[in-house]
């Protein structure tokens, strides 16, 4: 049974292209508490590489990412 991830904030990034998906994530990470989780749904294939790189350079964590059709869904945990 898959573990449920408790989401604090959902972000719709569909249709946005570089650099907007990562800019929106970086702006919104401040809106969840440390330890909080953002569920971000993008459609830009570039975000598959960009969002994990962003997480690495800002010290946050991608708990899970999945592709459902054209949608790319990230579960991002605020670490600091």
């Amino acid at each position, binding site marked *: 049974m898959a573990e449920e991830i408790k989401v604090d904030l959902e972000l719709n990034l569909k*249709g*946005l*292209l*570089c*650099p*907007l998906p*990562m*800019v929106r*994530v*970086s*702006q919104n990470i401040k809106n969840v508490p440390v330890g909080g989780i953002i569920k971000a749904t993008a459609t830009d294939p570039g975000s598959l590489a960009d969002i994990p*790189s*962003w997480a690495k*350079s*800002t010290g946050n964590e991608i708990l899970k990412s999945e592709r459902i059709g054209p949608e790319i869904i990230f579960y991002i945990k605020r670490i*600091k």
Partner: protein
Amino acid sequence: MVEEKKKKVSMVIFSGDMDKLMAAFIIATGAAASNMEVIMFFTFWGLRALKKKVSTGKSLFGRMLGLMYGGDINRATPSKMSFGGIGRWMFKKMMKAKNVSSLPELRQMALDLGVKMYGCQMSMEVMEIPRETLIDQVTDSVGVGFFIEQAQESNFTMFI
């Protein structure tokens, strides 16, 4: 919590071409979103990216320059396929269709994310583009000494 020292990037923006300015602002916003301190130093043709929509120039040559290469960021044309403005129109349409931010939007986003923008004092003198004709958000007009100091403290630098 101990405040970590931010990583930093310093960029020289020499070009006033639409496509190169796009690349510059995308990198700047990306770096700022990645929690970096970003310094953009606009020199020569790049100054267009900071200009207001006003005429510039005092001397004959200065006014000529203002006429032939005047206007604000919206007047920037692509470095290839410019076709006297048709290229700019085409790219703007294509970018809009793909939901890509326009140049002024990208610049505003960069400013909102805390990117610092500086004008090159020397180019401003030579091209007769006074401080009042640049947008208010410009931090300062400075010289190469300032840029070198910033570049030395940076994790990487760029020239566009």
